[in-house]
């Protein structure tokens, strides 16, 4: 479990990145910090592995204040995935994945064995092991980033807009993969994004942030879509623009064409005799 206790970050020049933030993140769940750029979400994420130290309040992992831990040791037991993968360009895929096990003293052979196993876990072809990151596609690089974060089998996974830089099709595939992985691995995931659809797709808990790390609303995806706490959340979800009020029209060949309030087609709902047509 991760707990933020009135955590805040003010920079020496007086800029307030995060005012006062309190949140409890239950173990084995995915919590998404959702907000536009400058809302302090990355700062909050980095407080967990001490890449940023809060200037007020504290962050606890399983009841222990992270400030009591040596940053280097702490980071080695927390997985971290960032945008643009953050892979080390001078190391082959297999060595990138084996980085943390090697740092913690695992022999090279065993670390590589572990890395190969993780390549299978995240769906990477073993033929890519000897490649350099620059020789991979964006989607493959992100998979390597996820594999690398999992290498030391951490309980906590911090993900900072990990799928932000890949095209929409690949992003959806990566999200699907992450959901599959999560049912299997059950990590405590803290995931940062500005993409509402991504938040709805991945989060057990979604925290909508306003500038300064203010919580606009925290809840399950259902709660947030069904009952947005205020205008800010509604706007963020696109509720005010009618993006989430859906209409369905019967199609000539059967089934329903679903569109938003503005008439933009969103998808097709197949005919289901057990269900009454929406309307």
């Amino acid at each position, binding site marked *: 479990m991760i707990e933020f206790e009135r955590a805040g970050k003010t920079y020496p020049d007086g800029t307030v990145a995060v005012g006062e933030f309190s949140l409890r993140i239950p173990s084995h769940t995915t919590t998404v910090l959702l907000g536009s750029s400058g809302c302090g979400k990355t700062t909050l994420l980095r407080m967990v592995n001490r890449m940023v130290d809060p200037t007020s309040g504290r962050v606890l992992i399983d009841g222990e204040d992270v400030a009591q831990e040596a940053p280097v040791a702490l980071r080695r037991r927390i997985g*971290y995935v960032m945008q643009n993968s*953050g892979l080390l360009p*001078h190391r082959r895929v297999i060595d990138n994945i084996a980085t943390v096990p090697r*740092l913690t003293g695992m022999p090279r052979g065993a670390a590589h064995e572990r890395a190969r196993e993780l390549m299978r876990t995240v769906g990477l072809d073993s033929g890519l092991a000897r490649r*350099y990151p620059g020789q991979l596609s964006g989607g493959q690089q992100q998979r390597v980033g996820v594999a690398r974060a999992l290498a030391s089998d951490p309980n906590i996974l*911090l993900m900072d807009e990990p799928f932000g830089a890949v095209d929409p099709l690949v992003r959806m595939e990566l999200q699907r993969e992450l959901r599959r992985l999560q049912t299997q691995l059950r990590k405590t995931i803290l995931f940062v994004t500005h993409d509402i659809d991504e938040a709805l797709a991945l989060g057990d808990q979604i925290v909508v942030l306003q500038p300064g790390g203010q919580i606009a609303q925290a809840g399950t995806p259902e709660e947030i879509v069904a009952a947005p706490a205020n205008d800010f959340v509604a706007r963020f979800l696109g509720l005010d623009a009618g993006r989430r009020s859906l209409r369905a029209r019967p199609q000539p060949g059967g089934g329903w064409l679903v569109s938003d309030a503005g008439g933009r087609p969103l998808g097709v709902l197949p005919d289901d005799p057990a269900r009454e047509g929406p309307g």
Partner: protein
Amino acid sequence: MANAGHILGLTGAHLQLSLPAIAAAFLLSLPLARLANRLRPARALILGGTGLLYAVPSLPLFIVLPVLIGTGVRDTLNVIVALTLFGLALMVRSAADALDAVDEDTRLAATALGHSSRGRFWTVELPLAGPALLAGLRVVSVSTISLVSVSAVLGVQSLGSLFTDGFQRGIVAAVAAGIAMTVLLALLLDLLLVLLGRLLMPWSRR
């Protein structure tokens, strides 16, 4: 050519003066560059200060240096130290810029993975600065090979002796041979450095 043995000997002497200086300039530039990058306020001072060394005329330096370090004017050590200083003048700025240009995201990623500050320098920043460091080193190498010749005026043997002797005795062939061998040596060393770079940094050409 009967002089081939003589020229070969001078080439050897030339290398004995230049190689240690090139190596020393490279190795000493790294801690200085790292210091300059870490102490931002001192950066301009360190880079400017070492850069100014290059403005010192070479011949006076060869003559003044023995007074400061207690060697003879014709000691090879005197020549090597002077050449190292000139090498540093070029290399410290190159190295500081090379280390500074390492991608910030990569640096952050290395930190997030749990590299210590020192570990990150040796295993991430230094290798990634490699191509730019190599570019700087190539300039130092060529510059040093050509500068060595000046020491011939003091009477220290090198390919430069072919100029001084040839000039005094009016032997054009000797001067020509000196020029040709110096250029050849500089080119060969440069080629060697490029090959070494390819060997050590296979990731940089993708």
